[in-house]
């Protein structure tokens, strides 16, 4: 967690404190933007705009304790603006090129596995995607997610649980295939040994 003094110093105009804050949060914000926008260029652009806004609006930050939520709120707004602008919601059929008839997750190369998961993630609506990314990847609490998305904790929980169900339903064929392969493998090994 970022030290409060650093945030206070940044608020009072210390540019070194800003660099320190940037270095501390840049990977998390980039990761969030990348998963929301599914494009490196767009994500880097959103990260830059986020930190420039943070720098310019430092005097609007009232509570230094809520800096992280404030930062993610700005990043979220940047992402949603871009999604709205580009209408980048990828249709599910287009997104999930890798289906159960192809290699199951366990047999894919690392980069392919990442690509595979990203495609399912991209198929979710932005409102579901953001809670999944904030909770599963950024490890934020319900309270923090509520502050970022301007929702109540119960609304966050409800949306997160629905998003998980939706993701599970979409990934179900691939997961079933993987489980079947995993079950087959011990049987093959047993027959080989005989």
């Amino acid at each position: 967690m970022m030290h409060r003094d650093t945030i206070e110093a940044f608020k009072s105009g210390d540019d070194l404190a800003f660099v320190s804050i940037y270095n501390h949060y840049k990977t998390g914000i980039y990761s969030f933007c990348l998963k929301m926008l599914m494009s490196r260029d767009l994500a880097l652009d959103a990260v830059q705009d986020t930190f420039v806004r943070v720098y310019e609006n430092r005097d609007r930050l009232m509570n230094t304790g809520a800096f992280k939520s404030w930062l993610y709120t700005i990043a979220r707004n940047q992402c949603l603006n871009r999604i709205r602008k580009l209408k980048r919601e990828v249709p599910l059929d287009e997104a999930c090129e890798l289906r159960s008839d192809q290699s199951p997750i366990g047999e894919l190369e690392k980069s392919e596995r990442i690509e595979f998961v990203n495609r399912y993630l991209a198929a979710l609506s932005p409102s579901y995607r953001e809670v999944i990314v904030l909770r599963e990847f950024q490890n934020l609490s319900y309270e923090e997610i509520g502050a970022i998305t301007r929702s109540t904790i119960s609304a966050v929980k409800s949306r997160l649980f629905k998003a998980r169900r939706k993701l599970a339903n979409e990934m179900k064929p691939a997961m079933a295939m993987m489980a079947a392969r995993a079950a087959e493998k011990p049987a093959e090994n047993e027959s080989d040994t005989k």
Partner: protein
Amino acid sequence: MSDGHQHNEAPSIDDSPCSESDVDLYLDGELPASREADLFRHLSTCSSCRDCLNSVLSLRRIHGEEYISVPPWADDALLARVDKRRRAGRRTAQLHTNQSIWSARTTVTIRSVLVVAGAVLVSAAYLTKQFASASGHVFVEQEHVRFIDPIPPLRSEVYVFYPGLTIEADR
């Protein structure tokens, strides 16, 4: 299981109702230890809840394998952009300080406008009064009357002040 509902499509071996919220609580590390045994018993028979759990765990695991970092050129680009903004901000601030008082624009409250307007009215009224008294015919007027034929014989000049008549002779 607690507050769950029955999955329609779940080919569950046992008939215990699914507790989706328990799966979610477990995933978030908030399920009480006393309920974990029940959840695992349920997961062993309910494919739907198991799929949900597995897909989220897979998602986490695969995300953990992904190495995400901001390229160095992006750091440089951001810091250059911020530096540019900072310089522009300084220039603007300097321009503001060098501005003449006539071109300065500030926001004022209605209250201050009313106070200033009242002060202007009061001072205008006062000045009008002063001006009127200084220029002539209101409060004090002096006329110099010269008698051709001095009556009474000892006085040749009479000063008349009015309102409130005052006559003053030179002797």
